[in-house]
């Protein structure tokens, strides 16, 4: 334990996939899978050590690694975690580890693909623990690059290049307001410009400045979250991208995380004033996503729109600005990494076997693939917030928060949840139930050993935290209290 505290754990965590990626490119292609798995498992161990030394009683940032990085322009390398971000590290690691274990193809370009995934991995971890505006922005943009190449080169759909172009253009454009907000914040710090997040938190801006910063960030992060009506890239990517990338993009909601970490704490007054905007966008997305999901004929598009609906519910929860809202939201975001991630991985496995995710061309998959059918149903039920899964306590907490602040929107939550449940069950029924007569169903095999292990691990975690949710609540308690106190 003592040794662990002295180690720069967060830096190790972020740098490990980068080193892994470089090694992958240098060594022969047949070692690619092995390296990826080693990186995944090692990262998982490091993230568990982070949890071991993390003190949940402390609300502020801990495990801080700080170094002057580019002395000429005063850019620092600052990493740290608090109760809100720390649990995202193991969640990210588990999800990437699952992707490394499932995406194993021995094509000649496998090393490049694996290295890009690892770059994505490092950037995602960086976003969760960056404590510096410049560093955060760097990781934020760095995550785009591998996504673009992974989708445009290895995507599943015919329009993958166009989809990737749409994605990266949208996201680069969204970066401009974020950068503008950061520059405005940095310029207002006493004693010259500072990009230290802790400085930003300690010196609140004036009210009009806060409004500008909040709106800029809302626009910038709104694309990534995605907020209605900025969401169109998500279903497009869902149709064109690979299962692994989709699991990460849809599973790890870094957009909402940025909203929680930056936009609201840095402009608390503005956020409180504009709660109606956040709640309105959340309600619209919640209902629209659920209704649109019901009209889909493709499992991936359905998952994408359900994802929009779910993430809008989280935004609505955040917009209530009370303790239950933030706690439920963080819990629900953690859930998504396994639920959405797991669903996209399973549907990807289905695509690998049958070559399609159109429900019209499937049918009867449960007969041939009972295990896949069971796990997809389990994850789907967890997404609906059925008790016994971790979705329930999170959704109940969010619902309480919304009911306290916007009772009308809470009724919309209930309607949206019922429609989203109908959407999932309807497409699930068409794809998995019925007689197995579709040509795609000839000679398909059920989940193989690695897939079954990944699904089982996800399922066990989901059920475990459904039965013992207080463990998560205890870990995030102190930091979420501080988060709410900052708004007062």
């Amino acid at each position, binding site marked *: 334990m003592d040794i662990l505290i002295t180690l720069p754990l967060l830096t190790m965590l972020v740098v490990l996939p980068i080193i892994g990626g470089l090694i992958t490119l240098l060594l022969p292609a047949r070692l690619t899978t092995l390296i990826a798995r080693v990186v995944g498992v090692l990262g998982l161990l490091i993230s568990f050590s982070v949890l071991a030394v993390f003190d949940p009683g402390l609300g502020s940032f801990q495990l801080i690694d700080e170094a002057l990085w580019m002395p000429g322009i005063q850019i620092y390398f600052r990493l740290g975690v608090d109760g809100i971000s720390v649990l995202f590290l193991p969640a990210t690691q588990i999800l990437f580890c699952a992707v490394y274990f499932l995406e194993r193809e021995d094509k000649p370009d496998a090393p490049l693909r694996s290295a890009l995934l690892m770059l994505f991995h490092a950037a995602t971890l960086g976003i969760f623990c960056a404590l510096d505006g410049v560093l955060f922005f760097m990781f934020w943009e760095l995550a785009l690059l591998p996504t673009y190449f992974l989708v445009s080169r290895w995507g599943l759909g015919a329009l993958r290049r166009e989809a990737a172009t749409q994605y990266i253009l949208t996201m680069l454009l969204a970066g401009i307001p974020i950068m503008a907000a950061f520059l405005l914040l940095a310029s207002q710090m006493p004693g010259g410009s500072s990009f230290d997040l802790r400085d930003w938190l300690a010196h609140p801006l004036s009210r009009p400045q806060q409004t500008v910063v909040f709106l800029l960030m809302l626009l910038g992060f709104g694309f990534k979250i995605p907020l209605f009506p900025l969401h*169109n890239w998500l279903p497009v990517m869902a149709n064109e991208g690979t299962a692994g990338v989709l699991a990460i993009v849809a599973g790890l909601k870094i957009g909402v995380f940025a909203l929680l970490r930056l936009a609201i704490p840095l402009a608390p007054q503005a956020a409180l004033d504009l709660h109606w905007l956040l709640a309105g966008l959340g309600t619209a997305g919640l209902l*629209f996503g659920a209704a649109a999901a019901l009209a889909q004929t493709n499992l991936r598009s359905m998952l994408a729109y359900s994802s929009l609906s779910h993430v809008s519910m989280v935004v609505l929860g955040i917009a209530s600005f009370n303790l239950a809202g933030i706690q439920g939201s963080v819990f629900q975001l953690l859930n998504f990494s396994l639920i959405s991630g797991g669903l996209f991985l399973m549907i990807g496995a289905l695509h690998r076997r049958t070559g399609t995710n159109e429900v019209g061309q499937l049918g009867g998959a449960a007969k041939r693939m009972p295990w896949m059918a069971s796990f997809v149903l389990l994850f789907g039920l967890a997404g609906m917030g059925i*008790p016994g899964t971790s979705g329930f*306590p999170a959704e109940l907490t969010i619902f309480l928060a919304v009911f306290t602040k916007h009772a*009308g929107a809470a*009724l919309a939550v*209930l309607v949206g949840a019922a429609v989203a449940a*109908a959407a999932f069950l309807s497409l699930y029924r068409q794809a998995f139930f019925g007689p197995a007569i579709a040509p795609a169903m000839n000679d398909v095999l059920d989940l193989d050993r690695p897939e079954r292990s990944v699904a089982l691990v996800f399922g066990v975690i989901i059920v475990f935290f459904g039965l013992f949710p207080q463990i998560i609540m205890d870990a995030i308690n102190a930091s979420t209290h501080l988060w709410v106190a900052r708004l007062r």
Partner: protein
Amino acid sequence: MSTELLHAVLHTASVLPLIPLVAAAGIAVQQLGSQPATSLAEADHREPAAARIALGATALVLILILLIDAAAIGSLIFGYHLPSSILLGTFFSSGDHVIPYVLTFDSLSLPVGTIVAFVALITLRFSRQYLHREAGFQRFFMVVCIFLSGMLFVVFSGNAVLAFIGWELAGVSSYLLIGFAYERHTATRNAQFAFVTNRIGDAGFMVAIAISLIYIGGVGWHEIGQHHEALISRLAALGFVTAALVKSAQWPFGAWIGRALEGPTPSSAIFYGAVMVHAGIFLLIRLEPLLLQVPDLMILLIFIGLVTAVLSWLTALTQTDIKSALLFATLSQTGLMLAACGFGFFRLALAHLCAHMLWRAYQFLRAPAILALSGRPAPPPAAWLSSRAWLHTAALQRFWIDSLSQIAVMRPFSQLARDARSLEERFIASISGAPQAPALIPSPAPLDPLIQSPGTVGRLLYALSNHLLALESRLALQGGDTQARRIFLLAGDYFRQAENLIEHPRYLIILVMLTFVVIL
């Protein structure tokens, strides 16, 4: 018997709702470890293990409940104190909202719990033979275990959230059993219909839980019952009653149960005959102190109960298959129980419920044997009924409950879904530059563009570069007149479309909801 020992026993025993869940997990693990059976002998060899796990767990639950029963009776005779609720810890908490894991052992939960466990045990024992060599033998036992766990949560819960957990577990297992023969489209479609209808009813439960936690400050049954603020009590009661009416399939929410008989006979026995359909009534009996504060709601209960009883009785008379006839007879009995609750005779309703559970489970389980032994056609409906054609037709149509729910709920939502999709495809996708199928890409602009990319971003860049180019070469006015005209025409088109859309009834739903969102 020393009190410490008694407490220790009670504490240990109060994990009993979790025992069937563990059994279900055990059956799942047993399945996961094995490959699909290749021969009949192998499958036969595997069946007893699953059945034994499920039966063992259920028997254990029954024994534990009987022990607690004995302790409770003993406390009456010998006068020692028996705690009526056991606190095992915190399920979860968020700030002021604390939800404890607490179970109640009182004169309401113990008799019902005993009967639930007993019915589950005999049903499982019956299924062991009845489902022999059926596809999904293990699955059936697993799902019934989940169901039993759910019902035990409902019965023994000390607060509304634990009851809701059980409520939903029962809902999920009901979904899985209605769709048990998942290769038949009707079965799975009905399963989905039942589940979604129940989810809509559960919204009432969620609202009631939220109101209790926020305004009453807790979800414990006694806290809810002892709150005396008219509006809060009324709203909470309304939420619980809605959920209970849907779960017990009372009029007019009963459409789902008519479609729910697709599962194997033992599951029909345990769900719709004996146990689950009584969950709503049980909840209302549990909420007696709350309901007594809202007299007008109790009058509504009498009305709904009597309507359900009469309509189901008439429907039952015209059914031609034994399961449907039994089902509607059951519904008419639950209607009477509901009316008894409405009149304030909660103990009478409880006695009726217990007796009816046992009797109906026996009838349902005996039904296949009767069919096999008698082989007679179903008796014709009574003469007085068949002589009144209108009533006979209405009863045969089950009073059009099913079509009503289709028109009122399903159709507007599926239309809304289609609208959402077309909104996405026609507007949002084109603004954000979603890639179109190649054939649909419009012919490229005559001018060779510097940048060509779809979507608003692409078009913005494209426009920017074009205008810069134009500025750079020479200031030039483009045909403003025609441009403006085109824009007006386009806007006119959109307005006309918007007007057409608003005329549809489903937009009323949106408007109503919007009003709620804004005013609350």
